[in-house]
């Protein structure tokens, strides 16, 4: 029974990580590409870490190391996404639609 739960979490987590990477490759410009990895991949890693927590807890002692990685990742993913968006706005990376505050740079 526990094996089935762990397997479901593993395949779901790896599937979400793959969906995030497919979004990184397929989406048209940088600001839309930012959505795939920062949300889907972080969620997928959360699923994998839950599976690992259940697996190591079922083998003996309660294992809470994974909570450290999960907490750290869920705190730092939005911060790095915000920094990347700020850097892209600063460098005026090409966008599919008009960005706010960019009107005076156009002829």
């Amino acid at each position, binding site marked *: 029974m526990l094996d089935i739960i762990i397997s479901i979490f593993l395949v779901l987590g*790896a599937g979400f990580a793959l969906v995030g990477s497919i979004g990184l490759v397929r989406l048209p410009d940088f600001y839309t590409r930012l959505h795939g990895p920062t949300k889907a991949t972080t969620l997928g890693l959360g699923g994998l870490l839950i599976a690992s927590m259940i697996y190591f807890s079922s083998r003996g002692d309660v294992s809470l190391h994974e909570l450290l990685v999960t907490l750290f990742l869920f705190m730092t993913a939005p911060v790095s996404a915000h920094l990347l968006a700020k850097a892209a706005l600063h460098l005026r990376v090409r966008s599919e639609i008009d960005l706010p505050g960019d009107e005076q740079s156009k002829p």
Partner: protein
Amino acid sequence: MLANAILIALSLVILALVLNIWRVVIGPDITDRILALDTLYINSIALLVLLGIHMASSVYFEAALLIAMIGFIGTAALCKYLLRGDIIE
């Protein structure tokens, strides 16, 4: 059951890593490459967690935690360099 699930998850994560490396190679802007490197380290943490379950050893967690910390610091330093032209002012 569990061994098959680990194999499926490993192949999905490896495919995700290959897609990330593809974006690092073709990325038209430098921010695309930084974003792809960011995703690359998150997916490598997933690979390490899967290897830890596969080999039933908890040694891989310290490596995963270290990669999480150093990867975030690297992304933050690269973005700071792009924004300000300097990392520590």
